[in-house]
């Protein structure tokens, strides 16, 4: 028997990064009895190695807990979401599986860029928002001030705002009560044809693809025949369960329940995130709304370090795509790097995480090219091309108009930092839009900036210019023509396609000089001299030469040295693992990435 939907509440926890979502989830697990004090560990739901190493949530995680209020047992399905801007898509997918959202605000930090972005997202999804101030145990907490801020920016009545410490558990019982009182139960039809939303999935070597679903109408039962509506493939449910937080099998998932489905799905391509599961016979006619495709903003080439691993990389990408539907990939061939994939990501952190997950989860060594954005090019022939690979950019003579993506960027920062950030934006070809004050000391600054000027490192610059207090959020608003050109790099007489970058013409000479100097430092010396040139079209604008390696030999190796010498050589070899042979020059991973680095040296 499925749980009576009347007593189910489905909600997400959303907030700016580090405001304590996962810590609050810990408390909800603990205080509901889902875990014992002995099982407790901090940010329990962050169970991916990368999440624990970095101390941030990367994947949204759903958990079912039971909570008894006034003698009635409720089932609460909560989703802990990531706060980093790059994982915004995880948040939007989670919210589509809920009726409510806890909007958490750090009582020492106040409203930040992702607080605003996530609050708007929740409102846009018609969710009930439960505003909660967190970290009130801290000395630096300023609950009254921050409530004001919340009211000012989000129009939320301060009287509605709860105050908790996710660390100590103070105030958490009120959170349970408010969720149950204010968030509506799921409204699906228990007797209608089955419709369950696939919001996530993962690949298991033994069981195939496991989908994570929320039942909207009807019920899912073990043994039932189901259909994945997008691809129209039919399967039989062999296992169902909930995350409590460990996977606990059950026989049935009813309206509003969240859990996993095992259905012998061996074909990776059968499963699409956002698809609807229905029943056969008696299939539903209309699938659930599903998700908007996310817009990837940064692209890079990923190539296997050893060229015979192309197929392994393809499989690794397909598997990972089941667990992260927000990156894109398509085969790419580079003269320099051979066969690989051009992949798109939601930001730099996302790119880094995907690369690391690919390497770890599939045991691959990858070479990555410098990231870039998508350009829109109108050719002389009148075609409009979207190009996310600099090598594909036509010759200057064939380009009518070279357009770049523009982002509207909101900075939330201490008022005394406005000047510094404005200067930063001006240097990066930004267009000032407006300044608004949240309070006398904090402001929202809005700029329009070329995406390529902000996406790679503006966040870091902002953090250092505001002593860590500034935050930012952005949205793409379209393309704008710019005076852009492609800068090519020629190594030992051979153009290395993977090193091409798009630059603003006014900065081309400076960038070109800096680039060849960087590469000189990154490319190892060879048996021969290696010339590095930067060129626009056929015009060489900078040149450096790497002198030949003349002597590289360990003088001594006797009995006592053998182990040490071998280890030193192994280290050298390790460094070569990510080298790519271009012509007769070996180019390291660092060299490919160094073209991005625009810092002065």
């Amino acid at each position, binding site marked *: 028997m499925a749980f009576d939907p009347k007593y189910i509440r489905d909600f997400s926890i959303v907030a700016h990064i580090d405001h304590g979502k996962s810590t609050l989830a810990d408390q909800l697990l603990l205080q509901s009895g889902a875990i014992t004090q002995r099982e407790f560990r901090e940010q329990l739901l962050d169970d991916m190695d990368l999440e624990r190493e970095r101390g941030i949530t990367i994947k949204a995680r759903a958990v079912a807990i039971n909570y008894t209020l006034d003698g009635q047992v409720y089932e609460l399905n909560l989703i802990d979401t990531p706060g980093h801007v790059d994982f915004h898509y995880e948040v939007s997918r989670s919210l589509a599986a809920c009726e409510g959202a806890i909007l958490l605000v750090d009582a020492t930090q106040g409203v930040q860029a992702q607080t605003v972005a996530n609050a708007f997202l929740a409102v846009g999804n018609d969710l009930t928002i439960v505003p909660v101030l967190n970290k009130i145990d801290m000395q630096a907490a300023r609950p009254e001030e921050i409530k004001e801020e919340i009211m000012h920016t989000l129009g939320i009545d301060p009287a509605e705002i709860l105050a908790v410490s996710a660390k100590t558990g103070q105030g958490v019982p009120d959170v349970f009560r408010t969720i149950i009182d204010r968030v509506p139960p799921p409204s699906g039809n228990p007797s209608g044809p089955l419709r369950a939303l696939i919001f996530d999935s993962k690949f298991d070597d033994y069981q195939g693809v496991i989908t994570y679903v929320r039942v909207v109408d009807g019920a899912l039962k073990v043994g039932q025949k189901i259909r994945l509506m997008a691809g129209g493939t039919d399967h039989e449910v062999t296992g169902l369960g909930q995350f409590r937080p460990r996977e606990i099998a059950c026989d049935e998932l009813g309206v509003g329940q969240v859990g996993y489905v095992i259905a012998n799905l061996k074909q990776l391509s059968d499963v699409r995130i956002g698809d609807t599961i229905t029943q056969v016979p008696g299939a539903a006619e209309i699938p659930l709304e599903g998700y908007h495709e996310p817009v990837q903003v940064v692209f890079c080439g990923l190539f296997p370090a050893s060229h015979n691993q192309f197929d392994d990389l393809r499989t690794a990408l397909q598997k990972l795509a089941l667990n992260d539907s927000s990156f894109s990939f398509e085969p790419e061939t580079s003269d320099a790097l051979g066969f690989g994939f051009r992949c798109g990501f939601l930001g730099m952190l996302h790119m880094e995480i995907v690369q690391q997950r690919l390497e770890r989860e599939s045991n691959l060594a990858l070479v990555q090219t410098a990231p870039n954005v998508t350009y829109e090019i109108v050719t002389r022939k009148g075609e409009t091309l979207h190009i996310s690979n600099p090598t594909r950019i036509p010759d200057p003579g064939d380009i009518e108009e070279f357009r770049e993506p523009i982002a509207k960027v909101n900075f939330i920062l201490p008022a005394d930092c406005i000047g510094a950030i404005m200067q930063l934006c001006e240097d990066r070809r930004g267009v000032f839009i407006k300044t608004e004050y949240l309070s006398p000391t904090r402001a929202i600054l809005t700029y329009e900036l070329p995406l390529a000027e902000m996406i790679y490192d503006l966040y870091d610059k902002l953090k250092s210019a505001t002593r860590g207090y500034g935050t930012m959020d952005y949205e793409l608003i379209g393309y704008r023509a710019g005076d852009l050109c492609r800068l090519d790099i020629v190594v030992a007489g051979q153009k290395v396609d993977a090193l091409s970058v798009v630059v603003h013409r006014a900065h081309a000479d400076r960038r070109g000089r800096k680039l060849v100097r960087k590469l000189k430092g990154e490319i190892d010396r060879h048996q021969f001299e290696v010339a590095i040139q930067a060129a626009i079209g056929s015009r060489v604008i900078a040149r450096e030469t790497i002198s030949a390696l003349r002597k590289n030999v360990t003088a001594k190796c006797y009995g006592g040295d053998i*182990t040490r010498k071998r280890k030193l050589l192994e280290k*050298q070899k390790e460094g070569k693992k990510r080298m790519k042979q271009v012509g007769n020059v070996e180019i390291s991973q660092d060299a490919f990435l160094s073209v991005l680095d625009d810092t002065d040296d």
Partner: protein
Amino acid sequence: MLIALRTDLPSWLWPRAAYIHVPFCAHKCGYCDFASVAGFDHLADRYLSALEREMGMTLGQPAVVDTIFVGGGTPTRLDPDQLERLMAKIAHWFPLTKGGEWTVEANPGTLDVAKVELLVQAGVNRVSLGAQSFRPALLAALERNHAPEEVERAVELVRGRFPRWSLDLIFGIPGSTLADCEADVAAALALGPSHLSCYGLVYEKGTNLWKQWQAGQVVPVDEETERAMYETVIDRLALSGLSMYEISNYARPGHESRHNLVYWANDAYFGVGLGAASYVDGVRSVNTRDLAAYLRRIEAGEPATGPTERLDAEARARETAMLMLRRTVLGIDRNDYELRTGYSLDGLLGPALARFVDQGLLEDDGQRLRFSREGRFLADRVLCELV
């Protein structure tokens, strides 16, 4: 740790070679990262007792060997009684086969007629003399505390008393020029050695010289000059009949150091004494380099070994290739390699080796692979892809 004698095993598993370490020195040279100590001569007798005890503990019964190498430190820093005692114990625990090679390292200024006689009596038939340079300024840069004339005096003592003797030279000393290097080689040759070890200076981490370099007080010789020095050494010695047989070693035919060839064949060896390494039955172990700890542990009847390492078959085969290639004449013989490692050279390393042949760093005559002339200068580029 008592090990059963396993003379039935092949030479890469069961040692036919023994290394004995004596750590005492008159003073610590600036570039030295050996297990050597200055100012601890008062511990020499205790140390010798510990050595005896260690030999007894590890061997249980005497082990016949083809080569013995007594190194340091400065073995000849011991006084004659001590030296005699050491030689007797070594001869007891490591009986040398007929025609075997027994080398003792000596530093100029530590040898006299009495010590030479006693070494000869003990059966030592090879002496390796640490000359390093004949230029006073360069000796000073290395913080060596002997004068060039002392090398000549030591050679006079050694010549004629031992069938073979060798000199150590270092090139690339900070402040040296190509002319210095040529002069050093000429001075060494003038003494008529049948063997020379000639190293490019290494700034070993933690040494005085390394610290000076880190602090910017010492500027290493530039790479182009160092390469020219290395070429000079190779060519000048070859002209005088001392041909290169290993990256840093040169000898008249038949005068190669048999003991050191054991290392480069990846054969097994015993090692006793402070910081000594041994390689027995596929296990590498190294004794502690801390003199007090060494004494304490041996005196307590415990082994003084630190970390040990046993490589799997493939790693051992790769290591063997890395070592064998250091032999510039022998290189790697395909049959010998397969016999010793169980791996076909081409099966394991074929593509990498072929690439280096292509790049002109290796030469392949179908049977043997060895460094080309150019390859010797860039050896690590090749070796690092073999391990």
